[in-house]
C-alpha cells in the first residue's frame, strides 16, 4: 500500500496511537467489554481523533467492521437531510456479526443546529443497535443535549518528542536521508499536528534528496497561502481593483470560506504589527474593522461583499 504517508502510516491499533495514552487506555476497556457508550472526541486537527475512532471500530467490530461502520464527514454533509436519511437508514438495519454498529461523525461542530437536534433524537432512538462516535474541534459548538449523551474525550496536541519519534520511524522505513535539525524545525512548524508533520516530511522528500532545515523551511513557506499576504500588500498600495480581484480569486476559485479568510487576514495583520510594518494606530483601526467584518459575516451578511469592504480599509494605510 503506497500513496500518501498520512494514510500509509496511520496506526491500525489503539496501542500504536501516539500521544494519547490516557485516552486509548480507557478505550481499550470498551474493546474488552465489547460494548461502548456514545463517545465524543474533541481536540485540534491532526492529533488522532479520526485514527482513534477507526482503530476503535476495527478492534470492537473485528472482521465485520466494514459492514457495521459508517463514516460521515459532517462538514460536507451537514444538513438535516443527512441525519434523516443516511444515518437513519444505517441505524435501522440490524448489526451483522457484531453486537452493535458504529457511526462515526467527523467535524460535528460544522453541523447546523437543526441537524444537531435531529441527531440527538437518533442517538436516543437507536441506542440498542448503534453507538455514535462524534468528533469535533470545539465542543462548545455542540449543543448541550448531545454533549450530555456522550462520554467526552479531550485530545491534546501531540508532544514534540513523540512526533520526533514517529517521524524518525517513517524516515527509516522510507530510507530517507535527513538532518537532526530538520526534524526539530519540522516539529516546531507542525505545532502538535501529526498529519501536518507527516505531510511536510513527504513533501520535502519529494523535492530534496537529503532533508535539511532549509528544505523544511522551503516547504512550509511554499505551502502557506501566499495570496492573502499579497492581497493585503496590494491593498496597502492603494490598488483596490487589483486587491479585489485577488480576493475573488481566493474565494471563488479556491473556494476558501469567508471565515477562513478573516482569520488569515487577522493573523497577517497582527504579524505586520509585530514586525512594525504598520503603525500602532493603523493596527488597532484595522483590527476594529476586521472584528466588525467578522461579526457581520456571522450575522448572515454576504462574506465576499463584507471582505471587499474590509479591503477598502487598507487603502492608503501604508
Amino acid at each position, binding site marked *: 500500500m503506497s500513496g500518501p504517508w498520512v494514510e500509509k502510516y496511520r496506526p491500525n491499533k489503539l496501542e500504536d496511537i501516539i500521544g494519547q495514552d490516557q485516552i486509548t487506555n480507557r478505550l481499550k476497556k470498551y474493546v474488552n467489554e465489547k460494548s461502548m457508550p456514545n463517545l465524543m472526541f474533541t481536540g485540534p486537527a491532526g492529533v488522532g481523533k479520526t485514527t482513534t475512532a477507526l482503530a476503535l471500530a476495527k478492534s470492537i467490530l473485528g472482521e465485520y467492521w466494514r459492514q457495521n461502520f459508517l463514516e460521515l464527514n459532517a462538514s460536507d454533509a451537514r444538513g438535516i437531510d443527512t441525519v434523516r436519511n443516511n444515518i437513519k437508514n444505517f441505524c435501522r438495519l440490524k448489526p451483522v456479526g457484531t453486537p452493535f454498529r458504529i457511526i462515526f461523525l467527523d467535524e460535528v461542530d460544522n453541523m447546523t443546529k437543526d441537524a444537531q437536534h435531529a441527531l440527538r433524537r437518533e442517538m436516543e432512538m437507536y441506542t440498542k443497535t448503534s453507538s455514535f462516535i462524534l468528533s469535533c474541534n470545539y465542543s462548545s459548538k455542540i449543543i448541550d443535549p448531545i454533549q450530555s449523551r456522550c462520554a467526552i474525550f479531550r485530545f491534546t496536541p501531540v508532544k514534540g518528542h513523540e512526533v520526533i519519534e514517529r517521524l524518525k520511524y517513517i524516515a527509516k522505513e522510507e530510507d530517507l536521508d535527513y538532518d537532526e535539525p530538520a526534524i526539530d524545525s519540522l516539529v516546531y512548524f507542525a505545532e502538535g499536528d501529526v498529519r501536518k508533520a507527516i505531510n511536510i516530511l513527504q513533501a520535502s522528500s519529494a*523535492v530534496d534528496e537529503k532533508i535539511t532545515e532549509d528544505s523544511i523551511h522551503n516547504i512550509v513557506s511554499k505551502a502557506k497561502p501566499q495570496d492573502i499576504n499579497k492581497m493585503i500588500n496590494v491593498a496597502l498600495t492603494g490598488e*483596490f481593483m487589483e486587491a479585489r480581484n485577488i480576493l475573488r480569486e481566493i474565494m*471563488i476559485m479556491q473556494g476558501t470560506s469567508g471565515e477562513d479568510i478573516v482569520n488569515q487576514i487577522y493573523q497577517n495583520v497582527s504579524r505586520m504589527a509585530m514586525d512594525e510594518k504598520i503603525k500602532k494606530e493603523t493596527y488597532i483601526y484595522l483590527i476594529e474593522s476586521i472584528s466588525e467584518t467578522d461579526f457581520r459575516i456571522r450575522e448572515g451578511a454576504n462574506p465576499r461583499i463584507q471582505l471587499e469592504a474590509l479591503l477598502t480599509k487598507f487603502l492608503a494605510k501604508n
Partner: protein
Amino acid sequence: MLWVEKYRPKTFKEVLGNTKAKKEIEDWISNWKNGIPQKPILLVGPPGTGKTTMAHLIAKQFSDSIELNASDKRSYAVIKNTVGEASSTKSLFESESSEELKIIILDEVDGIHGTKDHGGTRAINKIITEGKHPLILAANDFYSKRLTTIKTKTKTIKIPKLRSNSIGAFLKRICRQEGIEFDEDVIKELSKQSNGDLRSAINDLQVMAQTKDYLTMEDIKIIGLKDSRSTIFDSVRTVLKSKSIDKIKKAMILEEDPTYVLEFIAENVPREYEDSEEIKKAYDMISLADLNFGRARSSRNYSYWRYSSEFMGLGVALSKKDTYRKFSKYTGPGSFSLMGRTRKKKELRISVAKKMSEKLHISNSEAINEFPYMEIMFSNDRIAYKISSFLDLDDDEIKLFRKKKIPKKIIKEEMVKKVENNNSSSLESSSLNSVNVVSKISDIDDIENVSNLQKTKNNSKKKKRKVENKNSEKKKKSKQTSLFEF
C-alpha cells in the same frame, strides 16, 4: 376605443420611423411577389416599436395570413398542424402569382415557453427549412436562447427604439384630432418617459386625457411612477453620477433582485470613484446594505430591505465629494462572470477533494487545505504516480497538481515494483492482485521491455527480499503485532 388601435397605421408607409428597416421589408416582399423565394425575416426590437404592426401590414398586401402569438399554445404539434400544413401546401390552382402565397406571422418567438410549448423552437426551425411561404418572425430579445438556432436561418432586421421627437410629433397629432390642448412640456416629458415605446406613450396619453381636455405637468404625475422602468445600468449610472435624492430614489425602483443591484453597484464603485476615501465610504455603505439583506434573510423580516436600498443608493451616491465629469465603462458583477468561467476548474477541485476525503478520512475543506502539499509532492514523478494511483485520480485531476503528465517510463517502473512486491509477499501469504497487475503491464507495453527492466531491478529486488524476510521473522515471533500496514 383604444387609441392604440384607432391610430394604428393603416398602410405600410404610415408606420413611424425606421425608414431603413421599412425599405428592407418592402424589398423582401417585392422579391416574393416576383417569385423569388426569400429567407424568412426576423424583426427584433423593444416593445411598442411597430414590429407586429409592420408584420400585419405586410400580410395585408398578400391575400392570406396566419398568425400565432404568445397567447396561443405553441408546442411542436400545434405549430406543425396550423402553420406546417399551410406552409407546405399551395392552393389547388397552382399558379406562380403572389396572390396564392400565404404569409405566416410568428409573433413573440422569444416567448416560447420551455416546457409548455414543448418542441416549439424545433417546429419553427422545421417550418423555416421546409416552408415555401413568406415567414415573418418577431421577437423582443435578440439574445434570447430560443433564438440561437433560428437566428442563423433568418434575415434579422433590427427595429430600434423610436426617437422621442417622433413620438412627440405623433402624440401631438393625436391630441389635435381628439381636440385636446396641452402644455408643450407634457408631450416632451411623456415621450421621454416612454423610452421609445410608442404604444405605452399613446396609452398614457389616453389615460391622462380621459378626464381632462387640457393637459398640464400635474397630470403626468399620475402615470409618472408606474413608468419609471429604467434598466439596471441606468440605475447604477444614476447612483454613481448623481447626488440628487430625488433622482436616486427613483433609480432604486427596479424590477431586479436587490442583492443583484447591490453587486452591480459594488462592482462599479471603483470604476467611477477615484479617491480612496470615497471608495472606502461607498463600500461602508455597501457593507451596511448587505448587512441589512442578511438580517432580512435570517429574520425573514423583509422590511429591512428598505434600509439596504437607502444605503446602496443615496449612501453610495453621497460618498463622493464631487461628481465626476468623465465617461466610465461599467460592467456587470465580475464575481458572477468569474464564477461562470471557473466553474470547470472548481468542479475539478471538488472532485479531487472528494476522492481525498474518502481515502484519507478528512473533510473536503481539509482536503483543499492540503492541496499545496499535494502540489509539492506531485513535483516528484514517482510520488505523483503513487499518490494519484492511490487516490484513483484521472489525467485531468492530476493536472490540478502538476502541468506535465507523469512520464510513461515512471509508470512502467512503478508497476514492475508493484509486481515484485506482490510476488514476494505472495511467498508468505496468498496474493490475489499480482495476476491482475501483470496483465495490466502487458496492456501498457510489450513484455520484453518490462522483463529488461526487471533484470536491471534485480539488485534492489534482493535488498527488498532481505527486508521482507526480516519482517516475516518478526511476524512469526509475535503473531499479530505488525505495527503498520504496508
